């Protein structure tokens, strides 16, 4: 049922995203964590818990759990890949960048530092799904707010 993807659906549900949805990276919880934040998207019921293990100002380890749509799960999965081993400040800068991309910034969508998460640029065409893609990143934002 090909439709030339005028709707953006094929981009939205591309291979890489479905792969992260079906085989999420860094899923689960950490036995030892420095920060744990649980967020929900009350309108759709998506839930996500993010565990961070900090070593000084470095994210030594990260895990997420919860449930939700392919976009929220894939996005969280990609995020964990991206931020593991980064400084908190760097990770937070990536969150800002990711946000810009989801709000339509073409420049952000070309920013290599977003790695695989750039696959989610197409979510910008689906305003109601933007919240989904941001759930994990919002959890990161919240869990590192008081952290320099």
């Amino acid at each position, binding site marked *: 049922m090909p439709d030339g993807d005028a709707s953006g659906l094929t981009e939205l*549900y591309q291979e890489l995203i479905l792969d992260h949805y079906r085989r999420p990276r860094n899923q689960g919880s950490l036995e030892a964590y420095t920060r744990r934040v649980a967020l929900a998207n009350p309108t759709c*019921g998506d839930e996500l818990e993010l565990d961070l293990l900090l070593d000084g100002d470095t994210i030594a380890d990260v895990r997420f759990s919860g*449930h*939700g749509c392919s976009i929220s799960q894939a996005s969280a999965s990609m995020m964990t890949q991206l931020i593991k081993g980064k400084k908190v400040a760097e990770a937070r800068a990536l969150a800002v960048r990711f946000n810009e991309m989801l709000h339509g910034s073409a420049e952000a969508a070309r920013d290599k530092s977003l790695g695989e998460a750039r696959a989610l640029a197409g979510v910008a065409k689906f305003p*109601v*799904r933007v919240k989904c893609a941001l759930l994990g990143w919002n959890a990161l934002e919240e869990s590192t707010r008081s952290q320099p």
Partner: protein
Amino acid sequence: MRDVRSDFPILHREVHGHRLVYLDSAATTQKPRQVIDAIVEYYSSLNANVHRGAYDLAVRATEAYEAVRAEVATFVGAPDPNGVIFVRGTTEAINLVASSLGRVRVQKGDTIVVTAMEHHSNLIPWQLLAEAREAHLVMVELTADWQIDLAGYRRALERSPKIVTFTHVSNVLGTINPVADLTRLAHDAGAVVLVDGAQAVPHMPVNVAALDADFYVFSGHKMLAPMGIGALIGKPALLDAMPPYQGGGEMIRTVHDTSATYAPLPHKFEAGTPNVEGAVGLGAAIRYLDALGMDEVAAHERALARYALERLATIDALTLYGPAGDRAGVVSFTLADIHPHDLATIVDSEGVAIRAGHHCAQPLMRRLDVAATARATFYVYNTREDVDALVAALEKARTLFGYAHA
């Protein structure tokens, strides 16, 4: 039933280049020209504040408003229009009863009974009441066929609950509860009964006198009427004995500096300027539904639901939720590992509007053992073609998620 699609302007709009296939009427319904026109006519020739004016417009607006009260009473078989309280919708009606009746009827240690298939609107107000009064909230479980478990219900009634409440029709499962029987049992146990009719009144003939519910509530926007209007149907003797809910203009008799006496029913419970437009629109909606015939409406929807269940059952890896037998025009499902939100996004690209999520029924979701379902609901303007469009769109979702075409 006659084809009514031409009455609904919105159904002739396109969505993403497709005709709109609206399958979310359990959330809110679309409006026929007749209701939209009634609103325009109201503001163009009748608009005034009610109950307080001696001039022509105010008199006619008041008459129009009160006439709808009588129409509502007739439509749902309420014996006395004074027991019809206009509210914003089901949610407000339930909060009114939980707050006003609850305050006088429920004391520390008392029991309130709800079921596991309630909409949050028929759960949270009772949670809040139970918490405020230090009362017990007991949730009756469901059977494997998604009916209220009668044995569990009887056990709950043994606690002599002060208030028992349940939905007439489940907004997720389509289950139609045996309201008259449940009410009789609850009355025998000494309880006052509130029935959430949000998914019943729009879809089938309802006679509250025959059901004998003490309170029966529904929303206009789910039955072709404008948003912001609904009704609480209460037994006048009970309403009379209840303290006021909101205070303000219209609901008073005499106001002193630090105290007041209150107006008789129904005005005691209608503080402030009511939504006259909404009431007038509700009247137009009732006349529209009456002209179609509520028996026909119910038959139309159930036929569509049956057809949908049949067609959906042919889709590989599709799981249906709800009772096997008779059910209302509500069909909940999940499809393989495709999350309901993804499903909704994908079918939307084909013009098909379905709902995905917990449907404001999280306790039920836990019992279904899912976080969310997709849900298609049917109303007077839906057709078999709408079901076909849904099925085709679901096949597209399968393809996008890499499943072989069936």
